[in-house]
């Protein structure tokens, strides 16, 4: 038999004015299992709480219902009071008499009746409550940062500077990311590499940062505070410890005509290469897909011969490194659409139609033309250049509905850079809208239009075709008479859409984080949790979440780092125990879970794993679902999905909710007498 206490609060006049609290308390006293029922002016006040505590002790209550304000307001208060008097905090429930009753109804019998019913529902619920205990998980104070672009670099440095260990993993041979490829940055036009490279060096030298380049994420297991990650260190074929970075190998390598990724295909590199002169680490790797030694079974070997330190190691193999980390920052960056995505603009066959990143390399002093404006087909200086903004972005016909955000700004920058280099040249920009929200951004665009005389045309380009060595750009000017216009251009730059990396879906699946329809990683809440993911302990930084410019990426990198530091400030994590659990029953069933794992596909937190139930001799009896208490956030979607009702959620169990619902009714006649 339960021993339930009911405490009805008047909340001054707030409840008392419309609800007959005294009568409610009397009626409650008559409920089955209620052994104590009182009303009081202010339950949340010190004397009120003392009343509750004393009653718990004196009447040996095994559950209480506080009928007062919204549980969203004072549930912690009363749970704490219960806990302090020896009653498990989760044996306290609140009936919402104020927000849901007294404030919204007039003084009337029906209001009092409702108040009593609300209490009754919770009395029945609390009878089924079970003591619950907070979940504690230890924290490994090492962070993994995935991606060595500016967001990852910023994140790694901030975490390292707050005194924690960081493992920074980069898939390319050098950190730096896309920012290293940029010529100048908007809106200040300062040199991108000049501001980036010092930070890259800082990463390399930081005592708390372990830098692993040319490596990829293999697998993530575990949960917040206790991840186990596997990293595949791709074979560099060069022993980093021995290599002195002299560069003899790269100059001697006979295979030199490999399109250079760093130069966005505008230049060439050798099969053994350092991506760019300021690379960190500044040690070469062998590109096995192009190296003669690998393609022709051990021939060539020139680099090995010229290496003064004997660092070349053709036999090196991929290595799987395992680390235990407490948090992960995903900063895997973005990609941009190639020009071959646009049949109407020449589907990649016109050499002089290039994308924004290629233009960056053309404009960069360290690029293939050493910063001179030379068009790819014949190296001539383009006299007329057309920039097309929103190439793919905001175009549902192309399947990309979103705004790529950075294009308006970098297109203005490109036009400006072009005009600064080719004073006599004519630059056109076709745009839909100019989105220049940001500090000094609008001013920057105005400068391009007004000071640098860039012709901005509001309209879209329908077609580009080549004729007599010129690119005929057919567009429309929607502001001037909406007339079709044709420009004979020497070069066209498409501000192609920013898209997620081609492998972002796989990476997200490895990390068990969700991603949106465009394969950008999904944040936990679009407004209030823009840095966290749905998987506790995994944060996002930079353009892997959505298109972002440099300041935003850096801010988010720092934000992610601060989230990690907060996490690492505790030795043990404490979580509310309101999570789901798969039931256990007597053998030979062990659990009514039948192992269909349909629940796995519905869990937003990927918290459901496989548990093997085995005999003592190790033979498998059955596989059942197990909810990882570290990952479960307690939404209960799996609970309602499970056909055999093998999953239940603490705090909202089948029994509790069922009792609440059944308590409400079946008593229509009784009210006539109330």
């Amino acid at each position, binding site marked *: 038999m339960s021993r339930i206490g009911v405490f009805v609060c008047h909340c001054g006049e707030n409840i008392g004015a419309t609800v007959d609290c005294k009568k409610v308390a009397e009626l409650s006293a*008559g409920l*089955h299992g209620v052994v104590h029922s009182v009303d009081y002016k202010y339950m949340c006040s010190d004397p009120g709480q003392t009343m509750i505590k004393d009653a718990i002790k004196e009447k040996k209550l095994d559950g209480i219902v506080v009928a007062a304000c919204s549980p969203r307001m004072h549930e912690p208060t009363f749970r704490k009071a219960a806990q302090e008097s020896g009653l498990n905090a989760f044996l306290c429930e609140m009936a919402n008499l104020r927000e849901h009753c007294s404030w919204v109804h007039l003084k009337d019998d029906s209001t009092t009746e409702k108040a009593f019913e609300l209490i009754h529902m919770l009395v*029945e619920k609390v009878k089924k409550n079970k003591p619950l205990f907070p979940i504690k998980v230890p924290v490994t104070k090492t962070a993994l940062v995935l991606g060595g672009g500016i967001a990852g670099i910023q994140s790694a440095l901030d975490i390292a500077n707050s005194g924690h260990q960081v493992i920074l993993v980069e898939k390319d041979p050098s950190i730096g990311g896309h920012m290293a490829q940029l010529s100048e940055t908007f809106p200040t036009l300062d040199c991108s590499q000049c501001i980036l490279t010092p930070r890259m060096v800082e990463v390399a030298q930081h005592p708390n940062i372990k830098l692993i380049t040319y490596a990829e994420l293999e697998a993530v297991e575990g949960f917040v505070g206790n991840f186990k990650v596997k990293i595949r260190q791709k074979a560099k074929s060069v022993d980093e410890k021995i290599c002195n970075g002299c560069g003899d190998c790269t100059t001697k390598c006979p295979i030199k005509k490999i399109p250079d990724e760093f130069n966005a295909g505008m230049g060439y590199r050798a099969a053994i290469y350092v991506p760019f002169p300021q690379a960190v680490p500044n040690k070469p790797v062998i590109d096995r897909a192009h190296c003669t030694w690998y393609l022709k079974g051990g021939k060539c070997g020139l680099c090995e011969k010229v290496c003064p330190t004997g660092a070349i190691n053709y036999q090196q193999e991929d290595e799987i490194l395992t680390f235990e980390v407490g948090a992960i920052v995903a900063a895997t960056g973005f990609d941009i659409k190639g020009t071959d995505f646009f049949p109407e603009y020449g589907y990649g066959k016109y050499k002089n139609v290039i994308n924004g990143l290629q233009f960056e390399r053309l404009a960069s002093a360290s690029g293939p033309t050493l910063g001179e404006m030379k068009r790819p087909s014949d190296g001539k200086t383009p006299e007329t250049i057309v920039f097309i903004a929103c190439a793919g972005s905001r175009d549902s016909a192309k399947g990309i509905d979103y705004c790529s955000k950075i294009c308006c700004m970098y297109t203005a920058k490109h036009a400006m850079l072009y005009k600064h280099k080719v004073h006599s040249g004519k630059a056109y920009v076709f745009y839909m809208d100019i989105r220049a929200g940001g500090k000094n951004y609008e001013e920057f665009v105005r400068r391009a239009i007004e000071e640098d005389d860039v012709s901005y045309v509001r309209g879209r380009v329908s077609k580009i075709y080549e004729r007599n060595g010129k690119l005929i750009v057919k567009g429309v000017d929607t502001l001037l008479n909406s007339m079709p216009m044709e420009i004979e251009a020497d070069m066209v730059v498409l501000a192609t859409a920013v898209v997620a990396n081609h492998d972002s879906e796989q990476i997200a699946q490895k990390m068990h984080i969700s991603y949106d329809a465009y394969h950008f990683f999904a944040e936990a809440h679009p407004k209030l949790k823009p840095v966290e993911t749905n998987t506790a302990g995994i944060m996002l930084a930079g353009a892997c979440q959505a298109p972002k410019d440099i300041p935003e990426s850096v801010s988010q990198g720092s934000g992610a780092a601060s989230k990690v530091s907060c996490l690492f400030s505790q030795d043990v994590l404490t979580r509310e125990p309101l999570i789901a659990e798969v039931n256990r*029953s*007597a*053998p*030979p*069933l062990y659990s009514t879970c039948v192992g269909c794992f349909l629940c796995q596909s519905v869990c937003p937190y990927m918290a459901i794993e496989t548990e093997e139930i085995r005999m003592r001799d190790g033979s498998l009896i059955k596989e059942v679902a197990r909810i990882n208490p570290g990952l479960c956030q307690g939404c209960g979607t799996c609970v309602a999905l499970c056909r055999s009702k093998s999953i239940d959620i603490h705090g909202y169990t089948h029994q509790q909710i069922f*009792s609440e619902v*059944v*308590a409400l009714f*079946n*008593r229509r006649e009784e009210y006539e007498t109330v």
Partner: protein
Amino acid sequence: MKKIKKSNFEKMVNSLLQSGSTIIAPVLKKGKHYFSRIESFDKISLDYCQTVLSPKAVYFPSTDSLMRYENEHNNVKIIEVEVPKNPVIVLGVKPCDAYALSYLSEFFLKENSDTYIQVRKENTTIVGFTCTHSDDKCFCTSLNINPFDTKGTDIHFTDIGEEYYVESITEKGNEIIKNFNTMFEDSQTIDKKEYSSNPPIKFDLEKIRLTDKFESSVWLDQSLLCLGCGACAYSCPTCSCFDIQDESNPYSGERLRCWDSCGFGLFTLHASGHNPRHDQSNRWRNRVFHKFEYSVKNLGIISCVGCGRCIRVCPGGMNISEHLAELATI
């Protein structure tokens, strides 16, 4: 011995209906026959081989209320359930089903009389009919039951063309003849066999010796076809297993007696999780043993009447007469 013209038989039924008796008789629905309460004579369809379900629910409903209770603060008030006492006449009961009903009353009433069933039996008159249609699933004759037997009936009719040949078996039967004495005429004793169906004998009952076959592998082989539902038990005229269910809420509740089946895995499941009849073969063996061994030991009667219903309804194609024939050979 008596006889009654069919036209008079109709008048008699209508008169019984008018006098307030509940009449239950075979009725044709969606191509199959079911015992159902009738409101008029023309609903009756005696031209049938076998109803889908047996008439056992007349004594033993699929869900029976045993009592109700109400919570009054901290007291519990018990409310007894009254079994209706109005007269019930079950018409068109075949000898196999009548035989089964007599088994059921033995089972429920012999040692500890079950009030609910006692009351129903007292108020029920069983009007038997000689079986005229049988099919390849019928095997009553293999169990020494004749398709014209009168066991379990109160009054028995045999269709002899324009008239029914009538035998009164019990006092209730005499009562009917007395009440409608103008309609009944005296008759010679006839050989009912001429008017009845004659299902062939499918196996030699004497040769079925179960006692030493408890551990035989035959149970597994036979039960592979069984899907483990309760269709056989629920359609069986003699299956009498039940489960007690309390349906309740915080204010009141009701105690129900519901049909159960030994074919269900849950039937013998212990709270500990252990199930002494873990495999379907164990359950199938129990079913056969119950009918041909245990009920003989307990009540002296084989509790299978060869009606063939379980064969007809089985979704897995289990055929008890074939299985018994197989048992007779080993």
